[in-house]
Each structure stands twice: as structure tokens, then as C-alpha cells.
């Protein structure tokens, strides 16, 4: 188990390294001088020269990469050209809001999804099962940001049940603020997980070892909760791990629609002001978050399913 | 005349060596059966001969040409003369092709599609006793028996000299087994075909093969004519195999050799005679590696062969 964890984290580090380097080179490969683009109208030659030196853009590419990585190791993601504040500080300030939004949406949607899925699997081909199947398919079809806009329009603007803007102070106020965006992002996830749990549960319940368990008179509850769920849950964990990427993307829209601070809003604002270091920092952190979550879900999977320990 | 001669063939995957020096030959028009249990390496051997699995050492001579290590391109002309039949009757048929398409696949591959493939398909279906309208069907619409016959038709499409058959009767009920073996026997006589059959089922070997070899852990331990091996088996493992298939007769006498323990894993092979750990007659001498000792055509690899 330990060797698997180490090797999986090493792979994650490798993927992150390749992704960051690709990102770094992509920015450098763009035609035109990023400094001139960043400064825009205020581009005086001296300002340009000092900024180029500050960003080390005059160095050869691989040297810049070395500097970037050495600084990154100490957690320094460069400096925000305009405000002079360290990018790491800016990004870390916004990160908690995005995490709060993502976990809120995962918790309610995964919970409801598993309950719907398990119920549908427990009594297949009943009216309930077909209804859940229909609802799941329609939920999956609804893109997060359209649901966000519509729910903003109906629940916040028209009915005023929920606040339309901001994050709120204090626990209950924050929950009240995060409810609507979390609902919007999580909705398609309920359908996705419900269908997955139903399909994988039905498949496992059909396997021979379940018949053996029944032949030994184990109670149906124990068979479902231990013998079947232990295997049926595996694909769900993988999907949740991968899903972090989708949630990050959806979070960008939810933060804009509900005017919440967070990584998404930060990236949008720094793009409109052409603030490359901040864009780079935010994208890098979200990629890191995604690579880490896929690694964690693989590790949890390996812990639950000994067979997959040899797969690396 | 010797059609196929395999000498000292060795294959290994990473650190596990599967075949540790196998040598035998198949004469023209002869049917040779290789008998071995799971893990004996018989499938690896037949796939190495067909050029599907790499063999690190030794030689595979087919009509004097060395096949081991040939690239796919150089091997292609020989594929006309050697054809391989697979264990899973339905699984070895490409699911998206019709039976007609499957049977005439060899012609297309060898670039011989200047002839009327439809009539070839009918001829081949006829040969294996299937109705002509079977050509329009897809593999998943066939029963095990029918799929098995389509496999035979495809294997014999280009009238090969050597047919390699991997467990031809696997998955068939006893009553249907006979049908297929009779078909193979008829075709062998009609086309003067040589056959190399591998199986774990000793009973069918007695009715089909002229000569046979017993394989254990990637090695041949006994070889000879089928009658010789069945009536005067010499190697303890062969004797155990022969006694292991219970006769459908409640009063059959039970002088059976029961092997205790499981076959050792390919990763940690025992030293000396590899059957030593399970052999009821093992002695100290068995710690050495036994060589072939042959008495007029009947070879055995054992220091104290049974009388």
C-alpha cells in the first residue's frame, strides 16, 4: 500500500511538472512582447525595461524556467506587476472561498446521488427506478452556469429567498450564501453519481460471490452494505476524484454569476487586466488541486481494492 | 519427411521463463498431441510456433526454413501453410464481420482475392457441414458448435500443410465433442493434413493422435506413439495423468497415483527434476536434472522410469 501511495504521488508530481512547464512555455511562445501587452498604453521604454528585467524575460527560456521552479519550491509564485503583492498571497487569499463552494456542492450532490442510486439499484425497474433514471439524465443535461443564472433570477432576484451577491460573515450566513451556487454546480452531479451507483451496484449484485453470500444466509442488508457496496463504490470514488476538475470549471461561472470571490473570479479579472503572473498562479494552483484530488481518489481506491495496488 | 521440427525452444516473460528447452518434431500427415495441465506452457508453445509469441532461444524449422524471430512481413508467406485454431470458438471470430467475410479473410490477407470469394465461402461451409445461408450471420448469432466449425473452415481455407489446434474441444459437451473430432479426422485424411493439437483432455488424444508428448512446467517429460504412452507410460506424472481421468465404470480398480500439493509456480522453479516436489517415487538422485533416455522411440525424462 505504501509503495503504491509513493509511486502514485510521484506520478502526480510528474504530471504537474509537465503541465506547469507546458503552461510556462505556452505563455512564452505567444507572439508579441508580453510586457508591452501587459503595460498597454502606459508602456514607456524605461518602465518596459525594468519590468522585463523584473520578470526575467530577458533571460533564455530554460534559465527562466529554472528561476521559476526554484522560486516555486519556496512557495513564491512571482509578483503581481500592478499591486506589487506576491501572487502566492493573492491566490491563497481567494482559494478558501472556492474550496468552500466546491465542498458544499460535492457533499450534497454525492450524498443525494448515492442515495438515489442505491435506492434505484435496490428495486430495479420499478416506477421509482425509472423516475430516478429520467431525473438523473435531465440533471446531467443541465449545464451548471445556465442553472446558476436561472436560479439567481428565480430564487435571488424574484423571490429573494437567497442573497444574490457576496460570501457572508459567520457560519450560517456563509451557508446561506453558498447554498444557491452549490445547488447550481452540484445539480448535474446528482444525476451523474446516481446513475453510476445504480449501474455499478446492479453489476456487482449480479456477480457470483454475492450468490455465495446469499447461499450462506447472510442478511440482505449486510450483503448490500458490505459485500456489494465495497466494490460498487470504487468507480464513484474515481469519478469524484476526476470530478474536481469539472467542479473547478463550474465554480468559475458560479463565482461570476453570484459575484463571489474565489479563484475563478480572480482569473477572469486578471485576464481582463492582462495580469499574466496572477493568471499563471491561479491556473497553476487549480491544476495542482485537480492533480492532487485524482491522486487521492486513486490512493483511496487502492486502499479499498487490493487488486488495483499492482496496477501502477 | 519431417514437416515441423522444434529444438530447444525457450521463452521467458521478464524473469519468468515459461518454456525451458522444448524439442519435438511432427512428420508429414501425422497428428501430434501435446498434453499438459494449465501452467505447463503448451499455449505459449503453440503461439510461438505460429509466430504470435516471441521465443528467445532455440529453433522452429518448418520444411527446413527457420521461423523463429522472423518479422511479420517475412512470416506472411508461411502463414499460408500454417494455420492456428483457437480455444474460444466465438471469441476468435471478429465480431463485426459476417461468417462469409470471416471465412474468406485469409484470401484477402494473402492478396488472393482475384477469385469469386462467395463461391469459396459456400465451398468451405459445405466442407464443414454448415448450410450456405450461414454466411450472412454474425458470430454472436452462432452456437459454440457452429462457431467451432466456422473456425475450422477459416483455418483450412488456404489448404495449409500444418494445422495447429489449441484445445479444439474446450467448452463442448461430450456428445458434441465427437462430431468435431470426426470432422477433423475426415479433413485430415481428405487434405493429407498434419496436425499439432494441444489439450489437457487425455481421453480425446487416444482417438485422434498418432504420437504424443506430455508437458510439465514448460518441459517435455515423456514422448512416444500414443499406444506406447497409454499402455506403457514411464514417467510418474504421465501415469498420474492417465490414472486421473476416472472411467465411467463404478467398479474400475483404483490404482491411482494422487499427486499431493499444487504445481510449483513458474517464479520459483524447483532444482533438478521439477516434478520432484510432487512425485511419490522421488529419490535423492532426482535432485540432479534428468536427461532424455530413449528406448526405440519412447523417450522419458526421469532417472527411475516406471516399468
Amino acid at each position, binding site marked *: 500500500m505504501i509503495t503504491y501511495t509513493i509511486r502514485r504521488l510521484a506520478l502526480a508530481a510528474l504530471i504537474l511538472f509537465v503541465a506547469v512547464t507546458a503552461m510556462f512555455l505556452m505563455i512564452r511562445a505567444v507572439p508579441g512582447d508580453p510586457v508591452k501587452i501587459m503595460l498597454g498604453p502606459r508602456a514607456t521604454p524605461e518602465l518596459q525595461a525594468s519590468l522585463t528585467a523584473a520578470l526575467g524575460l530577458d533571460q533564455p527560456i530554460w534559465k527562466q524556467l529554472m528561476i521559476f521552479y526554484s522560486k516555486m519550491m519556496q512557495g513564491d509564485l512571482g509578483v503581481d506587476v500592478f499591486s506589487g503583492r506576491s501572487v502566492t498571497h493573492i491566490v491563497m487569499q481567494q482559494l478558501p472561498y472556492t474550496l468552500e463552494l466546491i465542498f458544499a456542492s460535492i457533499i450534497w450532490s454525492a450524498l443525494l446521488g448515492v442515495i438515489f442510486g442505491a435506492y434505484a439499484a435496490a428495486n430495479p425497474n420499478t416506477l421509482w427506478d425509472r423516475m430516478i433514471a429520467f431525473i438523473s439524465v435531465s440533471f446531467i443535461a443541465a449545464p451548471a452556469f445556465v442553472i446558476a443564472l436561472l436560479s439567481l433570477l428565480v430564487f435571488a432576484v424574484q423571490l429573494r429567498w437567497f442573497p444574490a451577491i457576496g460570501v457572508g460573515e459567520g457560519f450560517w450566513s456563509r451557508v446561506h450564501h453558498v447554498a444557491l451556487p452549490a445547488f447550481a454546480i452540484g445539480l448535474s452531479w446528482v444525476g451523474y453519481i446516481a446513475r453510476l451507483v445504480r449501474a455499478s451496484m446492479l453489476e456487482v449484485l449480479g*456477480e*457470483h*460471490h454475492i*450468490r*455465495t*453470500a*446469499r*447461499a*450462506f*444466509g*447472510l*442478511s440482505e442488508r*449486510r450483503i448490500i452494505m458490505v*459485500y456489494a457496496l*465495497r*466494490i460498487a463504490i470504487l468507480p464513484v470514488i474515481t469519478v469524484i476524484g476526476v470530478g474536481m476538475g469539472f467542479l473547478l470549471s463550474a465554480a468559475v461561472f458560479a463565482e461570476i454569476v453570484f459575484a463571489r470571490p474565489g479563484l475563478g473570479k480572480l482569473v477572469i479579472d486578471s485576464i481582463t487586466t492582462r495580469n499574466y503572473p496572477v493568471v499563471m498562479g491561479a491556473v497553476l494552483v487549480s491544476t495542482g488541486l485537480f492533480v492532487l484530488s485524482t491522486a487521492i481518489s486513486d490512493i483511496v481506491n487502492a486502499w*479499498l*481494492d*487490493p*487488486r488495483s495496488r499492482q496496477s501502477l | 519427411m519431417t514437416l515441423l521440427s522444434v529444438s530447444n525452444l525457450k521463452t521467458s516473460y521478464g524473469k519468468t521463463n515459461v518454456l525451458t528447452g522444448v524439442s519435438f518434431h511432427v512428420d508429414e500427415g501425422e497428428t501430434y498431441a501435446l498434453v499438459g*495441465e*494449465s501452467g505447463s506452457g503448451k499455449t505459449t508453445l503453440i503461439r510461438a510456433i505460429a509466430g504470435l509469441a516471441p521465443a528467445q532461444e532455440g529453433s522452429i524449422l518448418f520444411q527446413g526454413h527457420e521461423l523463429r524471430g522472423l518479422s511479420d512481413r517475412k512470416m506472411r508467406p508461411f502463414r499460408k501453410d500454417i494455420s492456428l485454431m483457437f480455444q474460444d470458438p466465438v471469441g476468435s471470430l471478429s465480431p463485426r464481420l459476417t461468417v462469409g467475410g470471416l471465412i474468406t479473410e485469409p484470401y484477402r490477407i494473402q492478396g488472393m482475392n482475384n477469385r469469386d470469394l462467395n463461391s469459396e465461402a459456400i465451398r468451405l461451409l459445405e466442407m464443414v457441414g454448415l448450410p450456405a445461408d450461414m454466411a450472412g450471420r454474425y458470430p454472436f448469432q452462432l*452456437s459454440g*458448435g457452429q462457431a467451432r466449425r466456422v473456425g475450422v473452415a477459416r483455418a483450412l481455407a488456404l489448404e495449409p500443410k500444418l494445422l495447429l489446434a489449441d484445445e479444439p474441444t474446450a467448452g463442448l*459437451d*461430450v*456428445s*458434441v*465433442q*465427437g*462430431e468435431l*473430432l*470426426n470432422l477433423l*479426422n475426415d479433413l485430415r485424411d481428405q487434405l493429407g493434413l498434419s496436425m499439432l493439437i494441444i489439450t*489437457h*483432455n*487425455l*481421453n*480425446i488424444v*487416444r*482417438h485422434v493422435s498418432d504420437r504424443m508428448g506430455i508437458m510439465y512446467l514448460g518441459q517435455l517429460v515423456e514422448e512416444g506413439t*500414443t*499406444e506406447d504412452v497409454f499402455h506403457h507410460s514411464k514417467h510418474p506424472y504421465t501415469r*498420474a*495423468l492417465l*490414472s*486421473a*481421468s*476416472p*472411467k*465411467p*465404470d*463404478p467398479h*474400475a480398480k*483404483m490404482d*491411482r497415483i*494422487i*499427486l*499431493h500439493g*499444487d504445481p510449483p509456480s513458474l517464479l520459483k522453479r524447483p532444482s533438478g527434476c521439477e516434478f520432484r516436489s510432487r512425485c511419490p517415487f522421488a529419490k535423492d538422485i532426482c535432485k540432479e536434472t534428468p536427461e532424455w533416455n530413449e528406448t526405440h522411440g519412447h523417450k522419458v525424462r526421469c532417472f527411475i522410469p516406471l516399468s
Partner: protein
Amino acid sequence: MTAPLLQIDGVTIDYNTKKGNLHALRDISFDVNKGEIVGIVGESGCGKSTLISTILQLLPQNAEWKKGAINFKGKNLITSSEKEMRDMRGKDISVIFQDPMQSLNPVITIGRQMVDIQHRSTSPYAEKWQKAIEMLSMVGIADAETRLKQHPFEFSGGMLQRIAIAMALMSMPDLLIADEPTTALDATLEVEIIKRLKDLHKEMGCSILFISHHLGVIAELCQRVVVMYAGSVVEFGTVDEIFFNPKHPYTRRLIECDPGHIKERAKRLPTIPGEIPDLTEALEGCIFQERCSESIAKCKTATPPLVSLGQNHQAACWLNHNQEPE
């Protein structure tokens, strides 16, 4: 003669499928006495697994009981409640399945599964663990202590089947059902498992219902034999009667076709031409008549009943009727 342990009387089961009602079992009747080994011989599609599921009352949803009863220790299993059945499964009746690689949970250790099936006994965990070790050594598995902590995929087929036997016999059941336990194994392993089953049977005295399509194994192990074909019993009798004095054409052909039976090298092997009839269509007359070389006119119209021909031997074939013993 004490009452048989298990008595199956006229059991008829249909499956309703898209193509209509599949008559999987038709009028199955035979019995198993206490401490006896009864063999069921049948090729693929003869209804063996449906019969086992019916005894255990673990039939799929689309199965429909038509008629018949199964008396086990004086209780009709067909009318028993799910609760009563669950009490018996794994205590009075236990099962060994065909494919050892598939019949154990892949992600749970062997030890945990062996303890779980002792869910009825209230003894502490350590005691159950000890019983598991005992059973494993009884079926010849070395260093059981470490083996219990391993998962099924770390064992060979032969080992897994021995574990399955250990699990089945752990609760000293009255009836052990073995559904083709050795079909997936090599010959040398098969005989070893058969020998072990014989010794355990002598030691424990439980009755065994042994299912196989391998005549040799049945001949060696069983005292009485049921021959099944396409969902019905064609012959039932002592092993000597069945093998030396078969009274049904299918049994005769089956014995002839077994390659082990043919002493000398045969140029042409005997076969049974044709295939199993489609059980969804209306069936009249004898089920085997299409493939039977000795069929007479009556076979096409009336279904032959299972009739006793004396000396504990029954067969369902019109040919026996004109020489019925007085």
C-alpha cells in the same frame, strides 16, 4: 426405511423471457437419503443450476414456480418464508460453486469471509478465527494463519476450491450441494478434490448432491445417480444400475460417447447428432425423441412418465413399458 432427507416431487419451473415461457424444469422427482451421495448428470442446458436455485429458493425474479414440492427434513422449502430459508442456508444446506475464481468476494480477506459466514454462532471473534484455521488445515492448506489474511486473487484455483469446501462444511450441514466443483480444475487436482470430499463425507456423514457432466467422477463418487436432459429427469437409479443396465437411450448414448469408456482407439467417435430443443416452444412427446435413434411413434405424442422398473431404478421411456416387470 426412514424418510429421505430431501424429497423433490414433481417440481416444475418456468422462466418468462421475451421469447415466451421457457420450461426450464418439468416434473423433477427424486430423493436423497441421510448420509448418501446422489449424483446429477447432465450436459449444458439440462437445468442443473435452476434445480439448485430452486432448492435454495434463490431463483431470479423472472422464474415462476408452476407445481411440485421440495421436502427437506419434513418442511416444504417452496412454501417456506424467506426468513426460514435464510436460517437454513449455510447451516443445514451449504453449497460449493463451479468457478472458484468467481465465488469469493475479491476485495475482502479470506479470514473475514470465513468469520462472516459463522454469523449465527455467538462465540467471540477469536474463536471463529480459530475455527477457520482448523477448517483450512482440514482441507490441506498449509500455514492457515497467514493465508487467512490474504485476498482471493492471491490463491490458485485449486486452493480456492479447497477453501470453498472448508467454508461449506464449517457448519456441519445436513446437505452439501456441489455444483460441478471440479469442472474448472485440471485432472490431477480434480481427483485430489474428489478424494478429499470422500474422506470428509465419511468423517462428517452429511448427504451430498453432486452435480457434474463428467461420468467418470459420478461413477467413482456417487451411490445413486439422476440423469437429466433439457429440463427433465430421464433416469434415476443406483450407480451400478445406471452404468451397467441403462434403461434410457440418452443415458446409453451418453455412456457410449464418453471417450474414457471407449477402450480401443476408435476411427469414428460416437456422437448424439442434433441439438437441445428450444424449451420455449410447446413441448409434447418425449423431450429426447428428435435426437433418439430408437424412438417409436408414441414418443412423438405422449410424454413418458418416470416409471419404477424395480431394484431402485426408474426411467422415463416408452421402450421400457412393454417389458414392464409383473
